[in-house]
């Protein structure tokens, strides 16, 4: 039997035509509350993929020519932007998931653990997909920017471009600004590189000797690498030896008889070290 209070409330419900909201309304509402959580986890996954790409493409091949120590290399190549993104979005996930229907039931530790694990699994998947299908997605962008900065610094001993032609021991390459450079390869003697051919993109470590004021762009090569990271290991016949001995590896790679090259490379390393420590 209804009491006075329940009768008042039921009358009000009846009089004001109050109806229960439809089930689908709540289904939609709860789904919408998941959107920030899903977005944050998704961005976290992209950050993980970006970190993986940056690590895999940090230029292990050139490490010995550019960096004095492992620490310099790690510091210079650390994917700071992705790490900051991951930590930032990771810190938002607790807030985002707590707003969901049953989000309050989970501890901060559980939410962080599940979200980070999901981001890592998804991140590995995104990275693998990008590598297999060469999607050229956003995860490559910071590495591409870094590559442009690092490998278009002729004054700092690093240059890159597409090979226009090869005449005896000289290479003509076009850099990203369409400047034609003459690369002096005489120090390599009779050594040939499979990736040094017309139309191929290369990276060169060496020193600029020309006078830019009179459009004289000459660069003496001390070490030459293919642009595509990873290609060197597959194309160099000396790669198996390289893996065993660091000094032999450097010599095999360079095969450059120019005595100034050691000084050039030491200068590059010192310059990079100063930059990293700054």
């Amino acid at each position, binding site marked *: 039997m*209804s009491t006075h209070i329940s009768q008042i*409330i039921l009358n009000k419900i009846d009089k004001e035509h109050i109806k229960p*909201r439809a089930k689908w309304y709540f289904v939609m509402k709860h789904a919408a509350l998941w959107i920030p959580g899903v977005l944050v986890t998704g961005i976290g996954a992209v950050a993980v993929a970006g970190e993986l790409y940056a690590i895999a493409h940090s230029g292990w091949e050139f490490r010995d020519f550019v960096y004095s120590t492992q620490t310099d290399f790690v510091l210079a190549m650390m994917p700071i932007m992705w790490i900051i993104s991951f930590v930032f979005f990771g810190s938002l996930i607790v807030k985002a998931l707590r707003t969901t229907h049953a989000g309050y039931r989970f501890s901060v530790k559980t939410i962080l653990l599940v979200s980070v694990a999901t981001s890592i699994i998804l991140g590995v998947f995104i990275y693998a997909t990008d590598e297999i299908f060469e999607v050229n997605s956003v995860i490559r962008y910071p590495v591409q920017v870094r590559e442009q900065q690092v490998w278009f610094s002729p004054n700092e001993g690093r240059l890159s471009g597409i090979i226009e032609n090869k005449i005896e021991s000289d290479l003509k390459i076009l850099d990203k600004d369409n400047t034609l450079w003459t690369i002096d390869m005489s120090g390599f003697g009779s050594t040939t590189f499979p990736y040094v051919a017309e139309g191929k993109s290369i990276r060169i470590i060496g020193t600029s000797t020309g006078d830019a004021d009179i459009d004289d762009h000459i660069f003496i090569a001390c070490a030459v690498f293919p642009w595509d990271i990873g290609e060197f290991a597959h194309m160099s016949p000396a790669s198996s030896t390289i893996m065993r001995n660091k000094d032999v590896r450097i010599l095999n790679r360079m095969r450059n008889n120019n005595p100034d090259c050691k000084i050039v490379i030491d200068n590059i390393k010192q310059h990079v070290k100063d930059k990293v420590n700054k």
Partner: protein
Amino acid sequence: MHNITKLTDEELAKLSVSDTACFGELIDRYNPTLLRYVMRRSHATKEDAEDIVQNSFIKMYRNINDFDYDLKFSSWAYRITHNEMIDWYRKQNTRPQLFITDKDENIFDSIAGDMNIEKEAIQKETKKEIESIIKTLDPKYQEVVSLRFFEDKSYEEIADILEIPAGTVAIRLSRAKKILQDTLRAYS
């Protein structure tokens, strides 16, 4: 036709969508408890408290399809009433405050038991002290103390009512008890 008095709260909630009589039964079951809860937690007049509870029931009815059957209906009803009460306070520009009545005498024994204080030690003066200490507690501690000792809710139920993790409930209760113990020790 169901004998609605024999149905559980959760079964009544399910049937309330199509049968308002079932919802009437839920109102009958929960109105006294929720009214007492609001009166304990507020300086509202009886009329204001009745308004808060009535509005809460209307909200429950409107959102009955959102009721999560993983919860106890009582936790859901307390949650909606608690939120309605907080809204009311916001409009009044005040904060909830715990009010202890003469009917709450046995609650002191419960608090004493939980804090390992001998029942005999809870003398008239100590009860007054406990009451005054509870009133000075931060609202977030007051609400867990209120639900645990005055409404006799479990940690999980408090978590569902306040929508916070059960671990947070445990931490808040333990801190509240520590404050009570320390302050009582200082008194003695």
